[in-house]
């Protein structure tokens, strides 16, 4: 499973900040390798949770249904480990623009203890290569994800 990472969007102030959660499942396949005797969420998956939250902040803020890639990350620090069953709560806030690409600060914690914090810049991925059918299927996927993350039926408000 692993991707996409987030389970729920728990708060969003359009154009400003977003909050979301992910609970690390016992059955997550990558835990068999990371690590066999000490299963914990990889640090880069925590960063991915921040990136995903920021991308939804853009989409929910009226930036369209586009998709975003990580262009840059800076000063991403790790604190406590995230173990199976832990709920990681993440928050991303818009920090400005870098050459027209949106930049963010983000942080995640478990039970109030900091697990990750950092700064990052996203870049919009061009969809020029997609034909109409592929674009429709991508939009349907994003709509389904949006509904699941917000806990509302697809097509609803």
């Amino acid at each position: 499973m692993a991707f996409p990472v987030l389970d729920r969007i728990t708060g969003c102030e359009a154009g400003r900040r977003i909050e979301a959660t992910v609970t690390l499942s016992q059955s997550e396949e990558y835990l068999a390798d990371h690590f066999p005797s000490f299963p914990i969420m990889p640090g880069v998956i925590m960063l991915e949770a921040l990136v995903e939250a920021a991308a939804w902040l853009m989409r929910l803020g009226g930036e369209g249904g586009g998709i975003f890639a990580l262009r840059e990350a800076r000063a991403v620090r790790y604190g406590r480990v995230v173990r199976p069953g832990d709920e990681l709560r993440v928050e991303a806030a818009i920090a400005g623009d870098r050459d027209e690409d949106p930049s963010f600060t983000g942080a995640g914690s478990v039970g109030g203890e900091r697990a990750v914090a950092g700064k990052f810049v996203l870049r919009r991925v061009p969809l020029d290569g997609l034909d109409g059918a592929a674009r429709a299927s991508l939009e349907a996927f994003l709509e389904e994800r949006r509904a699941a993350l917000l806990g509302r039926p697809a097509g609803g408000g």
Partner: protein
Amino acid sequence: MRWIHIDDIVELREGERARAARTVPANAEYLDRHFPGIPFVPQTLLIESMAQTAGILLGKTTRFERDVILAKIDRAEFAELARPGDALVIEAVLEDIREEGARASCRILRGDVEVGRATLVFALLTDRDADRLGARGFVFSGGLFGGLRPD
């Protein structure tokens, strides 16, 4: 998705530098679950490929006796997307090795094209860290990481 993001260590100069190879799988489920119809490797997993290459390089300096974990991403930048089928080369150079950890400068290349680069900071765990975490010897003890250890 299993958690091994390099295929092979192709060159290793002890305590200095390493090169790893990674061919992006043609049809990995996670590529399509990430964004259907526009498959590319999430940049966070490219950071992991760099971290695994540098982590093995650093672990080898301790004969894989100490656990190595990613403590900080100083900086990571991506210029290009990595797509299914891409043959990537990951380079890691150790800088500033200390008792408690090291910094590594890493790049990912596709042919002559630089896909991304990162400066990563690793911690070498101590007995005290192991007591705090309740775990030791977990990184290189076996599994796929064990299989990638260059002896």
